């Protein structure tokens, strides 16, 4: 990780309040699921803003974010050729394994970091069966679908009243369909989205004994591992970063681990205490 002064290459709105920002970036290559932290130019803003890497191509970094409060509003005001400081790359991303049957599940603003993942998984294994489930509240929130189509079969659900249910039942029916066709269950699931979505996917993975990786979010201050703000609960015995789908059924004692460094934001779902 380092501080980089990056020039804005382009910025455009791609959905309701959702922006795509492309930065010129010559730092260390980020892994899928890693994030950057943007140092706001507005001196009244005290903390840097964590945003996931959506896509990386040599020299360029694409970020997709929603304009919510003062920090993201100031980022949305950036114009091409302006410069901004970012700290990057941060955290530990998704694991690029050799599994053949891969499911990727994204909900809402959890979708962007999965794009680089899908791309890298496809590059790694041209024969892999990659299914990408993306759920959005409604048409106005849909992002990146065409880009995902380059890397796998994309199944999109839209449901303003209950986006989680819609996504879950689409996953279910697709899986049942697959299994009845004699195809296999996924060997691995990667997920990012609202907490309740990831919790649900983690539960399903546990029942089916499938390896599952999940990208967690937490309020941050330093974003670099120094302040211990960004913690989630993990079992005390947790080895973290293993590639095992062995689920411990006893409710273990917990400890707090940071989301922003060696242990996160991407966790093995069986090493998270879901609340």
């Amino acid at each position, binding site marked *: 990780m380092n501080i980089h002064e990056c020039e804005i290459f382009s910025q455009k709105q791609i959905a309701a309040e959702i922006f795509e920002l492309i930065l010129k970036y010559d730092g260390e290559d980020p892994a899928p699921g890693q994030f950057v932290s943007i140092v706001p130019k507005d001196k009244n803003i005290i903390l840097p803003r964590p945003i996931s890497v959506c896509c990386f191509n040599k020299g360029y970094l694409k970020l997709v974010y929603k304009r919510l409060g003062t920090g993201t509003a100031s980022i949305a005001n950036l114009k091409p050729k302006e410069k901004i400081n970012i700290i990057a790359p941060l955290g530990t991303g998704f694991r690029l394994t050799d599994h053949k049957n891969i499911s990727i599940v994204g909900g809402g603003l959890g979708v962007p970091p999965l794009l680089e993942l899908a791309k890298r998984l496809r590059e790694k294994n041209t024969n892999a069966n990659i299914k990408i489930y993306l759920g959005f509240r409604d048409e106005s929130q849909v992002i990146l679908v065409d880009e995902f189509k380059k890397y796998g079969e994309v199944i999109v659900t839209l449901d303003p009243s209950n986006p989680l249910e819609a996504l879950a039942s689409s996953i279910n029916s697709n899986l049942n369909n697959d299994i009845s066709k004699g195809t296999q269950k996924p060997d691995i699931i990667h997920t990012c989205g609202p907490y309740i979505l990831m919790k649900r996917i983690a539960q399903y993975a546990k029942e089916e004994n499938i390896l599952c990786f999940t990208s967690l979010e937490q309020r941050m201050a330093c974003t670099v591992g120094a302040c211990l703000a960004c913690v989630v609960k993990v079992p005390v015995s947790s080895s973290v970063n293993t590639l095992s789908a062995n689920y411990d059924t006893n409710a273990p004692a917990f400890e*707090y681990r940071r989301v922003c460094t060696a242990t996160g934001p991407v966790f093995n779902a069986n090493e998270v205490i879901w609340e």
Partner: protein
Amino acid sequence: MIKIANKEWKTPVTVASGTFASGREYGEFINLSHLGAVTTKGVSDVPWSGNPAPRVAETYGGMLNSIGVQNVGVKMFIEKDLEFLQNTNTNIIVNICGHTIDDYLKVIEALDDHGGAHYYELNVSCPNIKEGGISFGVNAKETEKLTSACRKITKTPLIVKLSPNVTDITEIAKAAEEAGADALSLINTLKGIAIDINSKKPFLGGITGGLSGPAIKPIAVRMVYETYKAVKIPIIGMGGIFRPEDAIEFILAGASAVAIGTANFSNPRASIEIINGINEYLEKNNTDMQGIIGAAT
């Protein structure tokens, strides 16, 4: 160049406890040996798990934190961090916390047994469980008892870190000085609460949090100013220092050195930029640190 308890500091700038861990992370951005000292996160005798998340909330011009001094305990600290710190080629200030006087003493003994540090900084803002959970640092008598107990068992210079959540900080400062403190550091965070208007509950997992950042600077400068006039021992000033000008205000109010805390978060190189800015100011005014410490009082 300044001296605190007879030890030389290359520059009058350290970092504030809890914002910098043990220096490993920010050591990727700056050369730690350029700091006058590295101040560690609070260390307790046994591991503390800390408070539930969320642990931070941004506020106008500042932030609230309720980390709850999560730390691995002195044994692991010695194993994992002490040697790293001893090789940083600068002074080490180990910040110490506890729930009883005995807790503080155990940490000091363990550290002294392993080569120790240049200074121990006593975080007296921790709740004192023997006195109903009220922090040591809001009571002159308790501050005095804690400081003199620590003084008796170690030769390592002691810095007492004062809480601003008091009516008269000079009273506590004098108690610490009389009990044998070699220096004072101030201020710790101010107690606050943020409320989530959607859930209608306190936002932080720890309910209350400590306010830091530019919002607290004028209070911190005032407290340094008052304390400087009340004691003879040196002061390390902190609270919302983001720019060199902020640091210089603290020095003019009576601080011999300053600590950079929250500013590290948005600018990991803040401490170095502030060192450079202080040097430029001294050159421009054709003076040195001795010429400006307390000059505004």
